[in-house]
């Protein structure tokens, strides 16, 4: 166990010392500032005022830091977050293989399974942490712009959600949604990791993962496969919004996150099996 932890620490050291790791963090701060700025311009503000008042709330209290935080998560985390997660996870094996670092690593008495398990654990944790960063930095910027307290308005037309919450319950559900969204986004990392295990350029692994996720989302959005929605991973990844439904559909969440866990494990197992069967020729 100590050995595994020291190997995990070494993997984190590699990840955290790379500039690329921080691109996502920087990009999201910029993105959040833009979204929060635009959301307070007259057009969007009028739209939100109408929506909140239609639900019986007061714009001044319900257009709060939590509402702005949710806005950032709903409109940017899944799309822009996917790009940065795919970038980091697509690199994690393929880049080392391309650069030649893997030869030195595999000349050590460590199994390929262990090596990949450590890398997979690192990139899924990174996915979760990046989402936490996005959620709480958006909240912090929202607090800076709108102050602490008020209510919360959740608007997610794709899921048919338009709900009002008081501050305490809203904050609790916001915290829960950040945890669930983080778990959903580990699948993007898993897909990129899976492609990274093949004999492939790191950029190709990233693009393949993003393409898969985009095609899946487009198929879901256009209802072309409405009878087969259960086959599209995006169906399950969007479950995080369900924490804003009253009462919370725990059974549905449990089922959907079990599917996500199964998909992640399958992608890890398939990627690892392929990698372990590969000859690493110099």
């Amino acid at each position, binding site marked *: 166990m100590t050995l595994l932890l020291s190997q995990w620490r070494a993997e984190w050291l590699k990840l955290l010392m790379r500039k690329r790791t921080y691109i996502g963090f920087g990009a999201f701060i910029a993105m959040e500032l833009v979204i929060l700025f635009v959301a307070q311009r007259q057009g969007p503000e009028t739209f939100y005022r109408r929506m909140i008042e239609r639900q019986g709330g007061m714009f001044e209290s319900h257009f709060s830091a939590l509402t702005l935080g949710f806005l950032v998560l709903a409109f940017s985390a899944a799309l822009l977050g996917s790009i940065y997660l795919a970038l980091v996870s697509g690199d994690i094996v393929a880049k080392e293989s391309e650069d*030649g*670092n893997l030869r*030195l690593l*595999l*000349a*050590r008495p*460590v199994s390929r399974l262990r090596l990949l398990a450590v890398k997979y654990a690192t990139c899924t944790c990174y996915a979760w942490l990046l989402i936490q960063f996005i959620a709480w930095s958006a909240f912090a910027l929202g607090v800076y712009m709108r102050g602490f307290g008020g209510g919360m308005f959740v608007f997610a037309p794709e899921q048919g959600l338009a709900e009002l919450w008081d501050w305490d319950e809203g904050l609790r559900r916001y915290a829960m949604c950040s945890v669930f969204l983080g778990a959903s986004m580990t699948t993007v990392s898993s897909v990129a990791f899976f492609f990274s295990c093949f004999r492939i350029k790191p950029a190709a692994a990233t693009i393949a993962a993003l393409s898969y996720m985009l095609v899946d989302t487009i198929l879901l959005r256009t209802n072309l496969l409405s009878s087969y929605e259960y086959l599209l991973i995006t169906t399950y990844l969007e479950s995080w919004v369900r924490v804003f439904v009253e009462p919370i559909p725990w059974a549905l969440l449990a089922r959907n996150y079990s599917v996500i866990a199964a998909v992640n494990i399958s992608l890890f197992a398939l990627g690892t099996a392929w990698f372990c069967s590969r000859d*690493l*020729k110099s």
Partner: protein
Amino acid sequence: MPLIEVQHLTKAWRKDKPALDDVSFEVGYGQIVGLLGHNGAGKSTVLGITLGMVRPDKGEVRIGGESVQKNRAKALQQIGAIFEAPVFYDYLSGWQNLRVLCSLSGWWDEQEARRILKMVNLLDRAGHKTSTYSHGMRQRLALAQALMPRPKCLLLDEPTDGLDPEGIREFREFVLKLKNDFGMTILLNSHLLAEVELMCDRCVILKEGRKVYEGPVPSKDAGEARYRIESPDLEKARALAAQFGAAIHADGAVDLPPDILGHEFVRRLVEAGVRVESWQKNRRTLEDCYLELTGPNA
């Protein structure tokens, strides 16, 4: 018992052309063995299989009695490896690179790390990013990381490639020191025949995936010694030589029977009135042997 046993390795990347065809050899404790061959002869495939990175179609490699194919982790605990143009994480320092690599061996001793870095003359630069290292410094860091799990054996894959002559000499002296002072066993894959000749006790020569020679480095093999004579009285010398059971060839090469020593033969020729202008040992060099075995006429 040898430290490394390569047993009947066969590997084909393509069906019609085997990369290795039943290659077997051994590396004894404390020996430096050179692995030679043209490009594509299968040297890197042998090293790949020895490190468990390549799966053989047949055969296996045993290190200290442990099969790499069956118990890779245990077998690899006994070796360290260096590759041609070693690649490190450029955004990490030399020290951090060592820590990352050693974490995979489950071994880290800060004192030992400092000692080895000092030994390879890199302690002062260990805190700098490896992107600032020269090729020679990278090679020394590669050597340090290979020595970190205290291996019994080193696998060196083209270790002097790209080094300047001073770097090559420094590297050679260090490797010989490892052998002489610490009894380290070394398997060296190199194109540089002169390096192999200077460093190795034995060599294995591969040609198109097959072993064509295994034995002492030819120039170091006393049994292979021949002589060369220069004389204006070559015909007379040849007639005398025949009486002693020796033979002098047209190019001056002399084959002596085992019971006559070189200086004794010369004394007999001179006493018989043959003028000898030059008499020297004419050993087959590694290059002669290598070209003989791998050249187009082999």
